[in-house]
């Protein structure tokens, strides 16, 4: 399907000819996506009919109304990576929100910011730190959109022990509904500012997103208030060393350690106790054994050699933690509490990770949420599985299960041999819930590897159902149909929501649901 020239002209009149394109070479840059091969068998998803770069909520609204009038669909994209960010089928235009990239406000006293869709984590973090504040960065990295994580996607990050989860950090929101009407969530709708996203009455945040977001299926979010959190360090954070082994000198108010335990059970106990003690600024399995070698390797052979060292060594049941405190007294308390917990759980600090330059690297890695790019290095790409947001015990059970399920795929050579344990995640809001997602690395250019990866993802999803381990993080098309019947038929309610809010099915439903009949 090619966009009718009259429609193209209507859209061009909204954003200006310099901000619209249907050149194939441009369009394919949007279709080229991580995990595209799991949808199409190639690295390309469906090519959008056109890409538009709106610069304001008014332009977004006009585009959405034009889509409704002309029977075409749209899909918004900020920093997105993954097929759920690009169009899911024929007849869909892409809205690239990169021109809407301003931090509109940082309210220092009330600890929140107001951002547009293309404000990335590192951009907000740098500005927030100047004011003694910080922002929750997700595992996907500091290069991802703060707004997208808060309104539309998942929101796990290892700072979650202190800074929660993206869903819980969003305040008021400016939202272009699927039919083009503008809804201002919470206090914003009543003209009271950006401090709250709920009410009057029931919270429409419930329609906006769930544990994961609507993935573009329920409209476009153009601004949001986002919670900020204390930063106890200096206003600017100098770097030292050469990437990827560059580090950040650790401010006096922080400490960084890698901790190891004798078993999964001991690790689970320790994390619960860390949560109860209300210590920790960043905490989680940032460096599961399968991930450690990729930090510094230059070849697959190096990886295998190094993996053998770390798997049999202390990293098997390890977590990384940053302690951060408002005062020297508090930091001392946190250190003592951590020492106590280590004694009780037979844990210890990993000596080789205590060298100052290593700790500086770890500190940067955790504060800046870096590392995601490394999982592309070994085999070409990666996918993830399991990882429900649930109790920490159930999260640990997911980690163990993932390792077990991966074995046969490793043995048959379908996915990279990472030792089996690449369970990444942490515990959030002082361990009120947590997650461990099992990562696999595979070669997307090798049909056998791709097939193995797909089979693993399918098997792990079914295992989450069979073992009642919660709702997995892995996003695949048809997820609602698979998990709906196992989870109170939630998909049927979603279909009704889609029908009520998007009568013309203008917002691309590919990674949400088709509306109810």
């Amino acid at each position, binding site marked *: 399907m090619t966009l009718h020239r009259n429609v193209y002209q209507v859209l061009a009149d909204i954003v200006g000819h310099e901000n619209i394109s249907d050149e194939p070479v441009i369009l394919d840059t949007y279709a080229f996506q991580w995990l595209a091969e799991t949808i199409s068998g190639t690295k390309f998803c469906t090519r959008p009919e056109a890409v538009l770069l709106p610069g304001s909520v008014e332009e977004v609204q006009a585009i959405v109304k034009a889509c409704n009038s002309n029977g075409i669909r749209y899909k918004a994209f900020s920093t997105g990576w993954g097929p759920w960010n690009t169009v899911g089928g024929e007849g869909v235009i892409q809205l690239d929100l990169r021109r809407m990239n301003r931090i509109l406000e940082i309210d220092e006293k009330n600890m929140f910011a107001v951002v547009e869709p293309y404000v990335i984590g590192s951009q907000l973090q740098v500005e927030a730190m100047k004011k003694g504040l910080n922002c929750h960065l997700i595992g996907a990295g500091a290069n991802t959109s703060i707004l997208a994580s808060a309104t539309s996607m998942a929101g796990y990050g290892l700072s979650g022990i202190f800074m929660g989860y993206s869903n819980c950090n969003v305040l008021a929101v400016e939202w272009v509904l699927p039919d083009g009407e503008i809804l201002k969530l919470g206090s914003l709708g009543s003209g009271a500012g950006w401090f709250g996203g709920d009410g*009057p009455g029931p919270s429409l945040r419930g329609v906006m997103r769930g544990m994961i977001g609507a993935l573009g299926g329920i409209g476009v979010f153009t601004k949001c208030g986002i919670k900020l959190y204390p930063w106890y360090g200096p206003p600017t954070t100098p770097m030292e060393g050469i990437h990827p082994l560059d580090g950040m000198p650790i401010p006096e108010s922080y400490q960084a350690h890698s901790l190891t335990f004798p078993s999964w059970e001991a690790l689970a106990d320790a994390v619960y106790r860390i949560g109860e003690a209300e210590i920790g600024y960043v905490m989680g399995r940032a460096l599961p054994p399968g991930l450690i070698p990729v930090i510094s390797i230059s070849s697959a052979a190096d990886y295998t050699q190094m993996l053998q060292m770390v798997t049999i060594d202390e990293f098997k049941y390890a977590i990384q933690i940053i302690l951060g405190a408002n005062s020297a007294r508090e930091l001392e308390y946190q250190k003592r509490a951590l020492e106590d917990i280590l004694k009780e759980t037979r844990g210890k600090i990993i000596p080789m990770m205590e060298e100052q330059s290593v700790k500086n690297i770890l500190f940067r890695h955790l504060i800046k949420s870096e590392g995601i790019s490394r999982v592309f290095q070994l085999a070409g790409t990666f996918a993830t599985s399991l990882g429900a947001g*649930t109790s920490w015990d159930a999260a640990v059970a997911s980690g163990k299960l993932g390792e077990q399920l991966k074995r046969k795929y490793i043995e048959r050579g379908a996915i990279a041999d990472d030792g089996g344990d690449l369970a990444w995640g942490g515990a959030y809001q002082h361990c009120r*819930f947590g997650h461990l997602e099992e990562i696999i690395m595979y070669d997307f250019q090798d049909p056998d590897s791709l097939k193995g990866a797909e089979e693993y993802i399918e098997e792990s999803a079914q295992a989450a159902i069979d073992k009642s381990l919660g709702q997995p993080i892995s996003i695949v098309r048809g997820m609602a149909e698979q998990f709906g019947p*196992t989870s109170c038929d939630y998909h049927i309610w979603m279909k009704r929501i889609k029908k009520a809010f998007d009568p013309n099915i203008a917002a691309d439903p590919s990674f949400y649901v088709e509306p109810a009949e």
Partner: protein
Amino acid sequence: MSEKEKLVAIVGDANVSDTPEALEAYSRDESFVRQMKPQLVARPQNVDEVQQIVKWANRTGTPLIPVSSGPPHFRGDTVPSLGGVVVDLSRMKRIIRINRRNRVAMVEPGVAFAELQSELKKEGLRLPMPLCPRSSKSVIGSCLEREPTTIPKYQWDISDPLLCTEVVFGTGDLFRTGEAAGPGSLEDQWASGQAQTNPMGPFQVDFFRLIQGAQGTMGIITWATVKCELLPQIQKPFLVASQKLEDLLDFTYRLLWARLGDELLILNNFNLAAILAKDRDEIKALRDTLPRWVLIVCVAGYERLPQERVEYQEKDVMDTAQRFGVTPVIAIQGVQGSDVMEALSTVSAEPYWKLRFKGGCHDIFFLTTLEKTPEFISCMYQMADAAGHPGTDIGIYLQPQIQGRACHCEFNLSCDPGSPKEMEKVRHLFFNASKELMEMGGFFSRPYGPWAEMAYSRDGQSAMALRKVKGIFDPNNVMNPGKLCF
């Protein structure tokens, strides 16, 4: 079979009432909402009965008004707008599960705070509470109303401490929200280590947010899990007094930033007196001796190194206070911080503290940010003065919420229900002040009674969106019709 007989068939003869006394009791509350009697009162005992009642209501087009807390009610949300059947959930009183490891409790809607707190205490846990709730207040009722609690550091999301729920939607369909939805039964989930601690979802919709704040218009909750916290081993409360509210605000902001203290709230002299004193005379006497404003901050130690935790927090609070020119003390004018904490840690003694002064009370509350509260307070005093309502009798409660991102601002207007003249005066003040405060930017996020029309007239898009939601979960409008924008 009459409709009453059909209800009797569901819940039993003893649990359906249509006596004039019973209907009268549910026909009004302490608010200015118009009186209306229900036709019947039904008291189900379990989810099956609730589901049957909702299905019956859909067949017959009968409004249902869910009530979980006992009287007195204050906000009009449990007064029928169009008649119908009151669904009194007070028989559903089970504490289904307390899980110490995950700090979570699962309760039915008839469980009141005192009942749950005593069971939690045995496990070394507590539930953050609203300010001295009345003894009959349902835990779930409070959570569903997004009632602020006195410990802002534990409020990561305004929805806290509510977690997962089981709900019978207005359609009669049974649903579980959050991770409780599945996969698996509750027993299966418990066996895998889950504890219904994640309220979000399932998947791409936060269903629980559509039920919370709905005043019973979307469905009826039959159980919920709530986020509990460790019971402190040591508590050390401090009081910080000031004649001028502005002098406390920067200090309060700093405490919130540093996460210092558990309980953290500001009361004016009237409200501090009202929660501590036994009767009107005592309130007056105490009010007149207290400074105009008191910030309450309590540092606590839990199971791990409790003494050390209290010590560092106390020193940090004192250092911070010095920086902001205020003085935390353990007692003010004979009021001990420990007495205040005792009041904050339990449900209100009888009579309910808001009724102690004159027997009646009307609350105006909304959300704003802390630094803006002096403007609202100034406006309230001006309007009270103009209305001839003594400013000294206005209770004020400021509660930082969402870890300091917002502030609940509450005015309590005491009045004598036996004095028609005074009631009329307070009625006018209530309406006029509500309008004015809303105009000034007060966010009436929980629009009870007459506030609903005011709030939705300012935010028509939200009203339209909510009506779409209502059409999905309660298409026949049987759930508490006439409330909010429905």
